[in-house]
C-alpha cells in the first residue's frame, strides 16, 4: 500500500515535469485573460457607473438595460455568444479576443453597479457644500466625490479580480488554451484526471486566495479613520 502510494506520487511528479511547459503557458494565458478583462472591464465599468448616476434620462435607461441584460445572462452564455456572433458577422476575432471581450463586458457591469452604489451612497449635502464654495461639477467630482467612492469600491473591486480569474476558465469551452484547457489536454494524454484536476484547482486556489488576502489588506488600508 505504502509503496503503491509512493509509486503513484512518483508517476505524478514525472508527468508534471513533462507537462510543466504546457501548464506554465496555460497559467500565462489565464493571467493575461484575467488582467486584460479586468482592465478593459474596469475602464468601461467606470464609464458605465458615471453614466448610470450622472447621465440624462435616455442614457440612464440605455445603460440600465445593458447592465440588467448582462447581469441576468450567465457568463458562459456571454462567452459563447461573443465567440459565435463575431465570427458570423465577419469580424474576425479569435477565441481569445472574443472571450476576453465577453469577460470584459461581464466585468464592466459589475464595476458599473459597484460604482453607482458607492456614488449614490454619498450624502447629497457634500455636492451642495462643494457648490456653495464655488467648485464646478468637474472639480467637485474630482476632489470630493471620486476619492470617497474609490475608497469604497476598492476592496470589492479587488474581489472582482478573483471573479475574473474564476470566469477565465470558461474560455476553455471555446478552445482558448488557458490553464484549464491545458490541464484537460494533459489528462487526455496520461489519464491522470484526479491528480491534474486537483493540481489545477490548487493553482486557482493559490491565485484567488492571494487576491482575497489582498482584498482584505486593501479593506484595512482604505478604511476611513473614525
Amino acid at each position: 500500500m505504502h509503496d503503491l502510494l509512493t509509486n503513484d506520487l512518483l508517476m505524478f511528479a514525472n508527468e508534471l515535469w513533462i507537462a510543466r511547459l504546457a501548464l506554465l503557458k496555460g497559467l500565462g494565458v489565464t493571467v493575461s485573460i484575467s488582467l486584460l478583462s479586468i482592465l478593459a472591464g474596469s475602464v468601461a465599468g467606470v464609464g458605465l457607473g458615471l453614466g448610470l448616476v450622472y447621465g440624462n434620462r435616455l442614457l440612464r435607461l440605455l445603460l440600465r438595460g445593458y447592465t440588467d441584460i448582462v447581469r441576468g445572462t450567465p457568463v458562459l452564455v456571454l462567452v459563447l455568444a461573443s465567440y459565435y456572433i463575431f465570427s458570423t458577422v465577419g469580424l474576425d476575432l479569435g477565441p481569445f479576443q472574443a472571450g476576453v471581450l465577453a469577460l470584459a463586458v461581464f466585468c464592466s457591469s459589475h464595476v458599473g453597479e459597484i460604482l453607482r452604489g458607492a456614488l449614490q451612497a454619498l450624502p447629497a449635502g457634500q455636492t451642495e457644500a462643494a457648490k456653495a464654495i464655488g467648485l464646478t461639477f468637474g472639480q467637485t467630482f474630482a476632489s470630493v466625490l471620486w476619492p470617497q467612492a474609490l475608497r469604497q469600491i476598492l476592496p470589492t473591486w479587488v474581489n472582482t479580480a478573483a471573479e475574473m480569474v474564476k470566469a477565465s476558465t470558461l474560455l476553455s469551452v471555446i478552445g482558448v488554451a488557458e490553464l484549464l484547457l491545458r490541464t484537460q489536454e494533459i489528462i487526455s494524454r496520461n489519464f491522470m484526471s484526479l491528480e491534474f484536476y486537483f493540481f489545477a484547482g490548487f493553482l486557482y486556489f493559490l491565485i484567488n486566495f492571494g487576491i482575497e488576502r489582498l482584498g482584505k489588506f486593501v479593506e484595512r488600508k482604505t478604511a476611513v479613520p473614525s
Partner: protein
Amino acid sequence: MGYTLNFAAVWRSFDLLLGGLLLSLQLAAVALVIGAAIGLVLAFALVGGSAVLRRPAQLYVTVIRNLPILVLILFTYFALPQLGVRLDKIASFVLTLAVYSGAYLAEVFRAGLLSVPRGLKEAGLAIGLTPMQIRTSIVIPLMVRNVLPSLSSTLISLFKDTSLAAAIAVPELTFEARKINVETFRVIEVWMVTSALYVATCAVLAALMRAVERRLALPK
C-alpha cells in the same frame, strides 16, 4: 455585414429551449435544497463556539469560494470515478452545484444567524426550550427573514451557474442553445433569445423573492 435577423429557425426549436430552461430550473431547485442544507450546517458551525467545528467549516468555505466552479464540475464528473465514485451527468452536476453554493449560502446564513439578538435565545432558554427547539422555532425563522435580500441574489447566481452543466453535455438551456446555433447558424437570434430567457427568468425569480419577503415581513 449582410446578416439579416430571421427568427423562424429559432422559433421552430423554441420547444427545445423551453425544455432546456425547465431542466435548468430543476437543476437549480435541487441544488438549492441540498446546498441550503449544507450551508445551514456550515453556518451553525461557523458561529458556534467550538473550534473543532468552526475550523473545518471555515476551510470548506475558503477552499470552495476560491475555486472556479468549472474546475469542480469537471473534477466531480471526470476525476471522481477514478476513486470509484461514478455519478451520471445530472447527479454529478447537481451535487457539485450544491457543494459549491453551500459555501456561499453558509456565508449568507452566517450573517443572518449573527443578526438574531442573543436575548431571544435566552428568552427561549428561560421558558425551558432545548437549544435545538430554539434553533427551529426562533433562530431559523428569524434568520431566514433577515437573509432574504441576499438569498435572492445567491439564488439568481445559482440559477445562472446551471449554464455550466453544458460543459458536461447536460441538455439544459445553454447546451440546447449551442446545439441550435451549430445546427441552424441563426447565431445572433439563438443567443438573443437564450439571453432573453435567462434575463426574464432571473427577473421572475427576483420578483418571487420580493413577494416572499413581503409575505414574511413582520407586522409593524
